[in-house]
């Protein structure tokens, strides 16, 4: 077992453990913090896969910005009743469990259909030649530019909608 394998099991173990803890914690602030830990260890796994840029984005966007926003909202909305469960009544428990099973089945189906990892190392030479950022940026802004723009418009629409809702209340 070489070093990268040890590091992999370290990150993977932390990711699994903290995601289980995230689901089981009663206090939403602790749950959000375990989610940060999960995202962080997944960023570590990305680095092990030579996806340095993806790892950086994971930490910048998810751990650094979105989860801070989550904490902000949880702290403000849960003032005074921190330990109240979100799921009430037996029907919703069954519904949530069913939804979880469907997601699990979907995940298994996707995993079974996943293409084999190619034998030849195609990532290493690309990173060597173009650097960690350009290797991602070039296909994103050339081959997939339409998809990128559509995603951008989608986000813009959501943002405008949020601003409109916020304005109406004020």
């Amino acid at each position, binding site marked *: 077992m070489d070093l990268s394998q040890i590091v992999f099991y370290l990150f993977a173990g932390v990711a699994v453990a903290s995601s289980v803890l995230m689901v089981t914690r009663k*206090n939403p*602030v*602790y749950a959000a*913090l375990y989610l*940060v830990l999960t995202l962080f260890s997944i960023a570590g796994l990305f680095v092990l896969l030579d996806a*340095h*840029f993806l*790892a*950086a*984005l994971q*930490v*910048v966007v998810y*751990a*650094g*910005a979105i989860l*801070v*926003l989550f*904490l*902000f909202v949880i*702290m*403000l909305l849960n003032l005074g009743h921190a330990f109240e469960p979100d799921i009430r009544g037996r029907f919703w428990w069954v519904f949530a469990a069913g939804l979880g099973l469907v997601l699990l089945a979907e995940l298994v189906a996707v995993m079974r259909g996943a293409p084999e990892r190619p034998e030849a190392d195609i990532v290493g030479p690309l*990173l060597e030649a173009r*650097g*960690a*950022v350009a290797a991602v940026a070039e296909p994103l802004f050339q081959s997939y530019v339409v998809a990128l723009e559509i995603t951008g418009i989608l986000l813009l629409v959501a943002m405008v909608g949020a601003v409109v809702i916020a304005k109406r209340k004020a």
Partner: protein
Amino acid sequence: MGPWGVLQPIADGLKNFVKEENLPGGASRWLFYLAPVISMFPAFVVFAVIPFAAPLATPWGTVNMIVADLPIGFLFIVALSSLGVYGLVLAGWSSNSKYPFLGGVRASAQMISYEVALGLSLVPILMLSGNVSLPEIVRQQQTTLWYVLPLLVGFLCFAVSYFAETNRLPFDLPEAESELVHGFHTEYSAMKFAIFLLAEYANLITASALMATFFFGGWDIPFWSGDNMAVAADGTVVGATPAWWITMLTAVVFALKTAFFVFVFIWVRWTVPRFRYDQVMALGWKVLIPLVVVYIAVLGVAMLVLSGAGIEFGLAYVGWLAALNVVLFLAVFFWLDRSRVVTGAGWRQVRSYQLQSRR
């Protein structure tokens, strides 16, 4: 304590170690202990990707004077520096007390707002250098101009948003002692309290080192080409020949540049009063972010025109950008100063009363 008071910090540190630790009632013990640690960690880790001296040739090969030359370069800094806020937010929340809580909420809102401006103000550097590697950025500044000249407006935005990111006055809303009784660390005592202050100053030194590296040539000694060297991919040194005294000298120059920005940070702290909270938010969202976005667009057009005119990246290219930036900087300064941001709080109200009484 001691000659010229130099031993005072040691006395304070000892005092803080032996003072009583307290845990407020109803506090979340784990997070309360974890928060100072989290706030300390990013400031130190970020320093690992900053090159601090010229490469040194040793019998065992060339040593690049940087702890970790990561493939993602300064994106690592953006990623890590955004994590420091967890320390503040958790300290505020876990204290189970109202003022610290308000401080924590303010910290998270301010950090999210200014992180956008900070990230965007690094885009001009990326556009000009075409690179995220910090040693490469230093190398380019050695052969052309320091990037503070061709990216003057970018530097302005970077400096302002880094002041907000490190929670220094005039942006220290999370601790605002006159309104929040020192905000997020009200309930902390002894060394845990001191660690928050140490983290703030560690952050300040890291921010100064970053400003020196991005915009003031890093460890480059100005007007001297004897230190213009860089380590190529195969480990050989290109440019000037390395020597131990050049490495020492550049390290000293880098420390001086960093010290200068530390001085500026402290200077601003004792000069500018604290903003009101809505002013901080308005400055971030309504001034800094639009300004940076427009600046990126203008810079992109300028670079397109320059390469269209057949000017390659070099001294002339950077010189033209510098000329453009001086003009832009003056325009931005006068735009900001039309009694909106730079004038004091409530001044518009005062003037409207004056206008009314005149009628």
